[in-house]
């Protein structure tokens, strides 16, 4: 008898098949979603936990819900999913390696600084000088909120641009200042400062995503709102003071001029070129050309708008913070309220 695969693998296949059963309809015994959530959060008493577990072991539906909760909890918040892997590797692998390299470069730099060569420092490009200024101005331990906010709309905070931009920048500037080791060391210090700020910003965002986050933490995540076009080839980031950035795989994050200075709170992108955004004080803006031009639309109310959905450039519905609901069928020329 031919043995295509080792028996062990095939036992797994048998096991997988035996355990495979489609989730059925909800029954009277099924656990409420909130109780499943409480079970996941370890908020149930011992007796309640045991009850849920004994039901889970025999209910494919509730078991599937638990698996979904775990899978969703594992997914990161507010970033393009294409970048997820890159960001993970950047923070968990590349960052420590880069930091180690930087420490070595700094050590070399410190040794060379004992005998400074002014003529070599003078060779450093303006870009390098600028970085040095930035590094000097950067507070030793900036508040997490400031770090987060200053980077929120900057292309360098998001995963795809972070990897590309910082490494290209670093490589280019290292070439410019290849001869003067002291300048390289200073550049490395600047890069280290940038990485520390970036790391603090990322930590802040992660902390903000946790349920125990304070109100201040919440504000940090607020500026990282992102919407996607239906095919996910375009992402829009929007936030405080009318800041907008657009992402494509080709261009990465590019800041755009929204033409407004109010905080933007929600957006909808029914196609790659069309995007609607709403925000505080009745702000409504729309682009029809991928963000090259943003058009300010006359609002039906001056209150804050906190949610919007749009099916195309003409049809959109939005909700105010007071619960008022408005719809347009003509691109925002007229608004109706049910």
């Amino acid at each position, binding site marked *: 008898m031919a*043995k*295509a*695969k080792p028996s062990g693998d095939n036992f*797994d296949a*048998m*096991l*997988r*098949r*035996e*355990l495979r059963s489609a*989730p059925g309809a909800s029954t009277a015994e099924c656990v409420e*979603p*909130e*109780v499943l*959530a*409480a079970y*996941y*959060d*370890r*908020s*149930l*008493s011992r007796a*309640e936990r045991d009850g849920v*577990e004994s039901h*889970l*072991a025999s209910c*494919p539906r509730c*078991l*599937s*819900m*638990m*698996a*979904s*909760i*775990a*899978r*969703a*909890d*594992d*997914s990161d918040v*507010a970033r393009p*999913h294409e970048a997820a892997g890159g960001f993970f590797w950047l923070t968990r692998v590349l960052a420590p390696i880069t930091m180690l390299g930087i420490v070595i470069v700094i050590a070399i730099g410190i040794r060379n600084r004992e005998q400074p060569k002014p003529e070599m420092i003078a060779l450093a490009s303006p870009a390098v000088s600028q970085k040095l200024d930035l590094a000097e101005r950067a507070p030793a331990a900036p508040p997490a909120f400031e770090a987060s906010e200053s980077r929120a709309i900057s292309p360098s905070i998001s995963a795809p641009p972070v990897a590309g931009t910082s490494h290209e920048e670093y490589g280019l500037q290292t070439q410019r200042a290849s001869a003067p080791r002291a300048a390289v060391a200073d550049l490395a210090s600047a890069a280290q400062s940038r990485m520390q700020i970036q790391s603090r910003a990322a930590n802040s965002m992660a902390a*903000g*995503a946790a*349920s*125990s986050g304070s*109100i201040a933490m*919440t504000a940090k995540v*607020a*500026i*990282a*709102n992102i919407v996607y076009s*239906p095919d996910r080839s375009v992402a829009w980031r929007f936030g405080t003071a009318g800041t907008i950035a657009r992402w494509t795989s080709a261009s990465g994050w590019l800041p755009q001029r929204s033409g407004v200075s109010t905080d933007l709170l*929600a957006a909808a992108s029914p196609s790659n070129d069309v995007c609607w955004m709403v925000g505080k004080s009745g702000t409504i803006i729309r682009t029809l050309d991928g963000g090259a031009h943003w058009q300010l639309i006359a609002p039906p109310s001056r209150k*804050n708008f*906190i949610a919007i*959905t749009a099916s195309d450039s003409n049809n959109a519905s939005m*909700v105010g*913070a*007071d619960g008022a609901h408005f719809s347009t069928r003509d691109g925002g020329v007229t608004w109706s309220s049910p």
Partner: protein
Amino acid sequence: MTAESPLKLKKLCAGAAARIVRFGANWNVSEAAALETLARSIESWGGLARGNSLEDYLESLRAEDLALAIACRGGVAAAWETFIGKYRPILYSSARAICRDESAAREIADSMWAELYGIANGADGTKRRSLLDYFHGRSSLATWMRAIVAQRHIDSVRSSQRFDPLDETEAFVSRNNNHNDEPAHLRMMEIFAVVLGATLAKLSAKDRMRLSYYYRDELTLREIARLMGEHESTISRKLERTRGELRANVERELRKTHRMSAEQIQHCYDHAAEDAPFRFGAEPPAANPGLASQKKEGGSF
């Protein structure tokens, strides 16, 4: 069983309400609103009737999230801004992770977002009822939203599957045309499935859950560890142990009760990777009516 006096219950509720009010100070959450929410939460819990400790229950409630939910339900703009900033990204990323399909995820997240505001509810057309009314603070808001998304996704998949053609008999016949030794092959496979199912049923609830998460839902060890409250290495070790014991017990049962030879067991393994030639855990299709009765009679090799 802990029977608490009405005075003590009142005192406990007042303490819990004070906590909620404290967290909701920025949004002017009133004590009356907090108490009303607590009353609904306690009613939904139903633990008092079972004699569970109210003190423990109130202690376990997420006061901060409840305060935010109360303020949002009350239409406080500042609370909504906080909610949008913190939970909108979570809702959409959770929907994407659960649905694994962008359009389905958007559909579920959009409709849920609308219901959180309350625009999709209110049968009378005037009363605004938010989905947050159903949040009782037993878990974090984030996990609660994930659970709702998961529930809606499952219901959505189930409702879409009702329209899929299911020609099991035809598929069954075409799949089994390449076995010349029918029905012996079928019978062996079915016996294997029955024995495996029975052995699985004897496992403890936790062992079955671990296996299901790993083999059925294909979760990572980290995800299973979080679900089970165990360390990843513990999950790995227990999975390996359960799998080994399961396999040994299945093979022992096949040899002892059904007198299957090592070659026959190997035959089952060899064909396990094929598209299911039979429906595990179900009666065989009508094409082979004799097999079902043989199985019930406990026929063996």
